[in-house]
């Protein structure tokens, strides 16, 4: 057995190291009432994770260590693109940690701070494996590793019934979907006799109805994670019920990983029946975008609202898998990056506002501009980016996403998606309207946000403003992309 293959999964290992350090630190760090576990919340995790992120980039920057490599006889396949995606995810996690700081500082959270970081990082680890899976077992393990701790996170605030209910709904639906997906995978195994992506592809054929069914079941399983219609119904409830920090994590990180995996599997496994897949996604996307938009128009609670916005964004995200072209892959990863900074930006503000005032309704934001102009300005930028307004990054990502889909030949789909952007603009503007225009007799009082939130906001805003304008990001991602 060749131990050097472990070096090929450097990111996973370093992440594991991070987890262990935090775990130990959590064990041996005494909890005091006031500042909880002190350095554990939040400097330590952030620094470690940053270090991990930078280390992870090593294969990309220095040519000495090869990026495209396998481990465990091909069950684990690493690629440059995978590294990029993981980096994006870990950066996102860092921002999420910054978001979580205030929430974890509350007295009743004081002795649970450690678990939060550990659990979150475990889900992240699961996604890492999912992202660079070369075999369905690895993929399945990764998926479950990503979703099981997530339940604990959603149910994190023990006293809150909503949180518990959200967790229940999440875990039940998750089990249901993973059961069906497992069944689908078993059918694939039965018909192809292998679980390796590469070896499976030649065995797949459009005539084999069992495989088509398996395709759908698989898409169901993964669509559950990306929360695509009709597998999305848990999303809104889970987002609303979960603690805000968890919601922001849920809304970006797991979505992104799943979308990338979806692309990889479609490209590696289902290439022969890509047309059928396209047909499925044609309808799935239309429904995801439209239905989510229509639901979002009516929402009162901002977290629930963000849930529906996330669903429709997921629809746009999946536009990239249409035809599984290289341009599509670039579009997906780029879109993921842009969507991440914008969405996390919004959640940063939501969570700090919740911490300071306990308000979560959109109507509570009336007059927010008068009391907290800076925050509402940043919120506006993030929302504009989500809505795809130039010069913010969202515009570029949407534009390139549509371009990819158009090039793949799905003109009608692009048209429908474009028309939907108008609706989405409408509800994003509703928030802006609440903040800027709507009068309010008792607006949320002016408050100062803590350093971590500030740092997070700076990162997000920089991302929102610069990632689009500076074309380096797109070109850099593009050079690693692969596809049909």
């Amino acid at each position, binding site marked *: 057995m060749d131990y050097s293959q472990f070096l090929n999964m450097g990111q996973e290992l370093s992440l594991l190291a991070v987890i262990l350090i935090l775990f130990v630190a959590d064990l041996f760090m005494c909890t005091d009432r006031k500042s909880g576990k002190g350095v554990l919340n939040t400097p330590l995790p952030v620094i470690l994770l940053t270090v991990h992120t930078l280390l992870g980039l090593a294969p990309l920057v220095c040519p000495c260590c090869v990026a495209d490599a396998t481990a465990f006889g091909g069950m684990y396949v690493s690629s440059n693109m995978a590294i990029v995606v993981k980096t994006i995810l870990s950066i996102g996690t860092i921002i999420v940690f910054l978001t979580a700081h205030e929430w974890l500082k509350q007295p009743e959270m004081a002795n649970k701070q450690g678990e939060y970081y550990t659990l979150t990082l475990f889900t992240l680890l699961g996604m890492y494996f999912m992202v660079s899976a070369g075999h369905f077992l690895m993929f399945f393990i990764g998926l479950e590793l990503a979703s099981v701790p997530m339940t604990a996170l959603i149910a994190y605030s023990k006293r809150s019934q909503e949180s518990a209910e959200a967790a229940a709904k999440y875990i039940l639906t998750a089990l249901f979907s993973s059961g069906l997906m497992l069944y689908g995978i078993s059918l694939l195994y039965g018909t192809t006799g292998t679980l390796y992506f590469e070896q499976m592809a030649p065995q797949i054929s459009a005539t084999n109805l069992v495989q088509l069914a398996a395709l759908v079941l698989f898409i169901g399983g993964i669509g559950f994670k990306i929360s695509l219609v009709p597998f999305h119904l848990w999303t809104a409830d889970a987002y609303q019920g979960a603690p805000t920090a968890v919601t922001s994590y849920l809304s970006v990180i797991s979505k992104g990983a799943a979308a990338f995996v979806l692309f990889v599997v479609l490209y590696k496994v289902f290439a022969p029946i890509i047309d059928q897949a396209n047909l499925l996604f044609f309808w799935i996307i239309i429904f995801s975008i439209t239905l989510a938009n229509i639901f979002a128009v009516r929402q009162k609670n901002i977290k629930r609202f963000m849930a529906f916005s996330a669903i429709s964004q997921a629809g746009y995200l999946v536009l990239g898998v249409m035809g599984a072209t290289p*341009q599509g892959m*670039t579009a997906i990863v780029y879109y993921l990056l842009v969507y991440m900074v914008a969405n996390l930006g919004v959640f940063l503000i939501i969570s700090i506002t919740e911490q300071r005032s306990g308000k979560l309704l959109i109507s509570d934001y009336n007059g927010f501009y008068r009391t907290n*102009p800076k925050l509402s300005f940043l919120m506006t930028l993030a929302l*504009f980016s989500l809505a795809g*307004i*130039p*010069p913010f990054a969202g*515009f570029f990502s949407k*534009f*390139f996403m*549509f*371009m990819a889909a*158009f*090039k793949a030949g799905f*003109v009608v789909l*692009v*048209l429908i998606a*474009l*028309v939907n*952007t*108008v609706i989405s*603009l*409408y509800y994003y*503007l509703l928030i*802006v*309207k609440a903040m*800027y*225009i709507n009068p309010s007799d008792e607006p949320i009082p002016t408050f100062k946000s803590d350093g971590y939130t500030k740092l997070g906001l700076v990162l997000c805003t920089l991302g929102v403003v610069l990632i689009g304008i500076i*074309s380096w990001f*797109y*070109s850099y991602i*593009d050079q690693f992309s692969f596809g049909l």
Partner: protein
Amino acid sequence: MNFLSLFVLIPLLMLLGLWLAKGVKAVRGVMVVGSSLLLVLATYLTIDFLAQRAGGNTAEMLYQASFTWFEPLNISYRVGVDGISVAMLLLSAVIVFTGTFVSWKLSPNLKDYFLWFTLLSMGVFGFFISIDMFMMFMFYEIALIPMYLLIGVWGTGQKEYSAMKLTLMLMGGSAFLMLGIFGIFYGAGGQTMNILDIANHTGGAHPIDFAGQCIWFPLTFVGFGVLGALFPFHTWSPDGHASAPTAVSMLHAGVLMKLGGYGCFRIAIFLLPEAANELNWIFLILTGISVVYGAMSACVQTDLKYINAYSSVSHCGLVLFGILMLTTTSTTGAVLQMLSHGLMTALFFALIGMIYGRTHTRDVRLMTGLMQIMPFLGVCFVIAGLANLGLPGLSGFVAEMSIFVGSFQNADTFHRVLTVMATCSIVVAAVYILRMVGKMLYGVCTDEHHLKLTDATWEERFAVICLIACIAGIGLFPSWISSMISDSVAPIIDAVKQAI
């Protein structure tokens, strides 16, 4: 990086300056300096452009500069101007300059107002200097979105509704537009977003096949047409203008609506000539309708801003009308009309805003005899009105005459009938203008609240006089600008004609 990019850079620096500025004086200072710089720049550009042309520089676009932006997608940052864009840049600079003075005393938070205002103008300038479809589209949307906050926050009346409607309808338009741009880009081989390269394709046949053109032409034309107040999609304009603060109405009707006409010409007509020849009749009918229809419904409005908004619908209809007539004269006239309508409607909105700011009503039935109370504003209002109904010696006349003469060069009945229809609008214009002027300015002032009102302040006078000067300037000496425009229009129109 040539000096055209300054048109984008200066607004950016202004944004920075505003961000740092403390206190109203500083904000105003930044705005005045910035907008005057822009004005100077535009003037210099015009002069230099004319000099170059006179010097025999016959390049299609001058001051071209380009560097690759999104290399994988063949998107570049490309700038360049021809006569049309120069004219439009000059117009925008003037409007922004005067708009600054008009919104001198605006409240609350003048600073944020000017932030969005500057962002808007940056979009406008960027749009006019760019010759890359992606850039154009980007700047187009940059110019659209600040409108929401400008109207929503600083507007009056049912501002939320109007702002939302305006934004959504324009964004809907740009959705179609985006699809059209993709169509053109990939139809032409996906090799370049550069308008010139697509238009001056090497080899005989147009890269985009006829069927494709017939799909993309309506999309792009409607996409821009929404902003140009094309007939069924114009309803954002009355409400939007009615609710917007003065300077925003100025900028919007004065410049933003011109983006529509400019885009229609630059992208829809220029890049899809065959379809333009084939399908222009549909849009001719629509624009013909909106010319008469706008004027007619202006006759029975009672809100000053609604009157002017509908007359804008009519005049902008005339712009698209002239463009679609596909003769050099009419198209030149259309561009002239953009200029003159931009100036005079800006003047109009400025005056309406000033009067509204004093009387706190825009209902013509509630105002009489203002001429006695605010003579300066009254006289300027009359001048604006006369410009609006195409009085010789003011810009409107030149533009309309060029359009009519040009349109009449199409010798078939269809175009003739439409032309005659369009000419009718000038009579109707007289009706609503005189009605408005007569009701509002003349007569004896009865309202004792109005009796105490004051005439314009210095900055208002300054802005208004600038605009009037420009209007009269174009009206009295049109030939230089008209030939500057036509030099750039003629080759395009010839190309379109040959495409048949």
